[in-house]
């Protein structure tokens, strides 16, 4: 902008020309315009400041929301995972799904254990995949599973007598003998009758032979570990529970004296 009197350069805020001293007639207009610009600038600045403040608050609130959501979700997870019923339900579901998806493998394993007369492996396999509780699977194996559990319990009780383990209930040898007697006699009540039943479908499969062999394996085990004669072992199936328990315990006291 130039002075209209002397043609010198004028600043936008010059009220008078610095060279000729004449008034700058555009000064008032410039001043008003400058004021408006300044006000506009300050207003925009305030708006930007406010908007930035609001945005940073929103950002922080979002972070707080996300963190709170994660914490709440984890707390719900902890509650669900810690609740026994929920945990067992989920676990059962997972196992059921696994068994359904891997039925061929499970079938093959059951056949393998049955053929090998691997009673312990069979019982722990059944326990691991909960095949007894999921009775929809393998109903035809019911007696095979029952036979295996009888064998395993007697096996474990004999081990407990020998190794001196008292269990969580502080059981003594007499208690273990009592349990062994119970499981021996239960075999002929719950498992073996199927073998003697000529109409049983078990005879169409190898299951009947399995439960017969399992019974013999239990008899051999008890005979060996309680130092019985063949006749004593063979006759134990027909004894009363208390008499059988007494016989086993009397042997037990000599063979595996309990430490006080």
């Amino acid at each position: 902008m130039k002075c209209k009197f002397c043609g010198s350069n004028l600043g936008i805020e010059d009220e008078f020309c610095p060279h000729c001293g004449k008034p700058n007639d555009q000064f008032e207009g410039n001043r008003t315009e400058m004021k408006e610009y300044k006000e506009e600038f300050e207003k925009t600045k305030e708006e930007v400041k406010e908007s930035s403040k609001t945005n940073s608050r929103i950002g922080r609130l979002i972070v707080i929301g996300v963190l709170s959501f994660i914490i709440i979700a984890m707390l719900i997870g902890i509650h669900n995972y810690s609740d026994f019923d929920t945990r067992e339900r989920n676990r059962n579901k997972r196992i059921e799904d696994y068994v359904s998806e891997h039925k061929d493998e499970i079938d093959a394993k059951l056949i393998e254990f049955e053929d090998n007369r691997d009673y312990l492996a069979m019982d722990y396999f059944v326990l691991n995949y909960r095949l007894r509780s999921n009775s929809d699977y393998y109903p035809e194996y019911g007696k095979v599973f029952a036979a295996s559990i009888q064998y395993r319990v007697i096996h474990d009780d004999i081990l407990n007598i020998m190794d001196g383990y008292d269990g969580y209930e502080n059981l003594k040898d007499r208690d273990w003998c009592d349990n062994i007697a119970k499981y021996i006699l239960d075999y002929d009540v719950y498992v073996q009758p199927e073998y003697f039943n000529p109409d049983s479908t078990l005879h169409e499969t190898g299951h009947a032979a399995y439960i017969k062999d399992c019974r013999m394996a239990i008899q051999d085990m008890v005979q060996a570990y309680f130092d019985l004669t063949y006749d004593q072992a063979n006759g134990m199936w027909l004894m009363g529970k208390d008499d059988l328990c007494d016989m086993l315990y009397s042997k037990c006291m000599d063979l595996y004296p309990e430490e006080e």
Partner: protein
Amino acid sequence: MSRKKTKQDPVNIFLDVIIIILIFAMIPVGFFYYNARSYAVKPSFTKDAQMMGFLLGKRDYAAFIQGRYINSYNGDTSTDGYNALADYIEADFKYKIYDAKNFKAKADEQKDIMESARKQMGELTVFTDQVDEMMGIKKE
């Protein structure tokens, strides 16, 4: 060029404090969540090496053998040494039956299993004498 120090928004300061508290709260909650979840997804009855050692120390051989089977069904190989010792105990147990019944082939089969297990159990072989003694097996 000096920069004018701007005054912090007190609301933002308050929100920052909450964020820091939440981050610190996430650490124990995350830890408990991880533990609860690990326990819940773990197959039932599996026993880790520490537990197998505990059972062995308590001479609870029945549970020890159970642990061996369940671990192997769940593909857990972290307890291989203990598994070999469990195989040894089981074979030793069967050996006594077959030996008493004079089933020589079966007894020899168990002897082979015991020998093979002994090679795999590393320093746990020290327990085999204890097991043999318990079973009443005489050293050859």
